[in-house]
């Protein structure tokens, strides 16, 4: 097949000479990659070549594709964004060993986990070459490097095993000596619709060979030739016998849903189901004009009581009543429990500074909230305490009402989660300004269908309770 290849058509010769040393394996792997791409018959405009940092990173510069050298270790993350937006781009990554599995290890794992359709060619020369030959994660045990003057006491990593474990669907290994096998294995990766890894074990005569008794580049290629053993033969050998061997061939192949394809399916479904979002909050003229110029409402309790949602619904109801509204929420880091504060400012005009100073209305649904906030309410204001939780009534100048809101929601309505809407119903009546019709409209929009009717029932039940509270008071 190599005979038909017109290599120069794929090279960006204006970038020559390459920056690679004599005997370097990178050029060999670039040629193997080009052979595989040529075999696929792809248009160069449809090929994207992505690299990271290091000697390997210059590879895309020499190839006449859509070429990019990204940052160290991040090539797979860049390629993920590129492939998502342009799934038609055949995307090949040319990574170094440190680039791929040290600094880029997390992206490598997640690329494999997603099984995104990228072909990753790892140019593994067992060393950081560009910076002068420091150990990489793939440096063999007890080899020398410029940062292991006493020998590398760490074990090397097997990046193919990691790729398989993380979910890659095509994993192969070869060497820079086995050029025909290399082209064939890379082609296998290009054909696989999913995350493909082809590790090419390469010589680095300058950074690795000199320090590890390889006197010439040729000696390094001889090492690759002699250490390689096919995956079939390796199957019969013990781990001890495989020590210092390079197992070559297709190590793993499997079938699994591919990320881009699955995303497209999900997106298609989402598009079919998409509802028009965000209907405008229409005014309810018959409900307007009930509020005075400016009011502050504080709903307080703990996380999980639905106070944020209650504040949102209250705000929207007042907007439907023709008012300006702002809503502030203050929640602790806990997903449930902790303190929760949901505050609404209602105004005729611009709300210059959305901040609560002294609320006109307070709802307290825990003892802690009652203790903390009752005294701050305006003397002419209204306080509603959920006596399910507030057992001791703090002294306050404002008119204070008590009702077992949560208990009623739980025992009479059958669901404690509607306590927030029940409380809104009570407040609508106690304040006499908040339109229960506007609230019903908002509850219909905001609450999921399965609990919609229950919430509306709670709202009107609250309104009736409010009536009783006012009458009892009178």
């Amino acid at each position, binding site marked *: 097949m190599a005979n038909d290849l017109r290599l120069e058509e794929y090279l960006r010769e204006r970038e020559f000479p390459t920056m690679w040393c004599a005997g370097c394996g990178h050029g060999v792997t670039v040629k193997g990659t080009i052979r595989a791409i040529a075999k696929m018959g792809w248009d160069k*405009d449809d090929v994207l070549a992505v690299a990271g940092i290091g000697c390997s990173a210059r590879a895309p510069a020499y190839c006449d594709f859509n*070429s990019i050298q990204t940052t160290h270790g991040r090539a797979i*993350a860049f390629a993920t*964004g*590129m492939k*998502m937006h342009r799934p038609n781009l055949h995307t090949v990554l040319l990574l170094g060993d440190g680039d791929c599995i040290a600094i880029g290890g997390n992206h490598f794992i997640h690329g494999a986990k997603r099984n995104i359709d990228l072909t990753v060619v790892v140019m593994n020369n067992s060393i950081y070459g560009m910076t002068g030959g420091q150990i990489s994660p793939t440096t063999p045990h007890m080899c020398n490097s410029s940062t292991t003057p006493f020998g590398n006491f760490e074990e090397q990593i097997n990046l193919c095993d990691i790729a398989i474990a993380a979910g890659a669907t095509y994993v192969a290994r070869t060497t820079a000596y086995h050029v025909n096998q290399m082209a064939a294995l890379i082609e296998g990766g290009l054909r696989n619709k999913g995350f493909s890894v082809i590790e090419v074990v390469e010589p680095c005569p300058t950074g690795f060979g000199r320090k590890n008794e390889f006197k010439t580049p040729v000696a390094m290629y001889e090492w690759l030739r002699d250490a390689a053993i096919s995956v079939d033969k390796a199957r019969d050998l013990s781990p001890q016998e495989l020590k210092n061997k390079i197992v070559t061939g297709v190590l793993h192949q499997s079938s699994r849903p591919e990320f881009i394809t699955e995303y497209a399916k999900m997106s298609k479904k*989402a598009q079919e189901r*998409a509802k028009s979002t965000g209907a405008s909050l229409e005014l309810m003229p018959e409900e307007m004009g009930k509020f005075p110029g400016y009011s502050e409402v504080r709903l307080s309790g703990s996380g999980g009581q639905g106070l944020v949602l209650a504040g949102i619904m209250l705000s929207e109801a007042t907007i439907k009543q023709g008012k300006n509204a702002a809503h502030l929420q203050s929640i602790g880091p806990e997903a449930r429990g902790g303190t929760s504060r949901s505050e609404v400012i209602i105004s005729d005009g611009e709300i*210059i*500074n959305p901040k609560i100073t002294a609320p006109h209305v307070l709802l307290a649904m825990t003892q802690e909230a009652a203790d903390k906030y009752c005294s701050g309410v305006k003397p002419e204001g209204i306080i509603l305490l959920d006596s399910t939780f507030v057992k001791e009534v703090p002294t306050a100048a404002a008119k204070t009402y008590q009702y077992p809101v949560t208990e009623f929601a739980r025992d009479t309505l059958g669901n404690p989660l509607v306590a927030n809407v029940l409380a809104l119903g009570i407040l609508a009546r106690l304040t006499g300004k908040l339109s229960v019709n506007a609230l019903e409209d908002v509850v219909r929009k905001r609450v999921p269908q399965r609990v919609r009717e229950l919430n509306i029932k709670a709202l009107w039940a609250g309104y009736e309770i409010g009536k009783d509270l006012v009458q009892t008071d009178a």
Partner: protein
Amino acid sequence: MTEKKERVCLLQGNEACVEGALAAGVDLFAGYPITPATEIAELLSQRLPERGGSFVQMEDELACMAAITGASLVGAKAMTATSGPGFSLMQENLGFAAMVEAPCVIVLVQRGGPSTGLATLPAQADVMQARWGTHGDHPVIALSPASVRETFDLTIAAFNYAEKYRVPVILLTDASIAHLREKTILPAPEDIQIVNRKKPQVSPEEYQPYAPDADGVPPMASFSEGYRYYVTGCVHNEKGSPVLMDPEVASRLLTRLEDKIKRNRQDIIRYDTSHVDDAEILVFAYGSITRPAKEAVLKARQEGIKAGLFRPITIWPFPDEEFVQALGQAHTVIVPEMNSGQYAGEVARAVCDGGKQARVVRLLEMGSRLIHSDEITAKVREVARHGK
């Protein structure tokens, strides 16, 4: 019903950001969960697939910034959103995006720091990280909204500037604006101005990916459109080839990157003033602190104190000329901010560079409490009492 489809709604700051991004035409969002920015990712995880766009939750923030930069280079309008800790991780690839001139938008919802800090509380502690967070020199545009509606408008502006000038643009909000909900009237789509990156007018053979037009900005061919070229974070010439040992080429590139923002600053600088004409005391506030500052200035005026407000909407580049003009004869500038004085230092520099004598008084909050308007009013009174 009005003829145009304006929309009245109660919107949260983060929701307004999403609406703005969608209105601007965002194609791809890459995110990672972080308080107080998470709502943006959650909403876009629904809205983007619904309109055929791309949403991906990446493995970390390094990857988010990489994914949006990559997507931008293949033609996407791309965005990410994060808070201080995540923004630190994005710096590496933010510098890359600036270097390769990839348009993109980073929403930075500030929270109390440093380190994990105060995850749910607001701060303005990343003003300098937004400007100088990466290694090396490069220009940046950062916008800081003071309301929910403005978050919508500035998200659109962020995309437009990114596309127009081929720069990463940072929308610098904070937890208090992000989680505030306000009655908001969103404009009809036909009333929103959208800018798209300019494309090459020459053939692929003639195209030089980093040869600028007269405005300093090179036309941008997306990968996959037949213009095959090489993109690198190395210093490069107009053809895009790495040139690593030529100070002339390096200087030409880096100067152009700065100049394309400098020479277009009139278009980029946005600011707002009130009561500055006869002001003796200028309150200089930005972002969420604008609101209490405005209230404080109004109160001071009621008390007969000649106070005014200058509010930069564009935080970076710093609005030197506009600020110095607003400063006029004012003898004191009060800078309330929720950090250790990051921006006040810049204000002092601008006073000095502008040949003014005004004193810069800092009113700082380090505990993530929103600065109260009463505190600002008190500071204004105190300064007024002591005069110059």
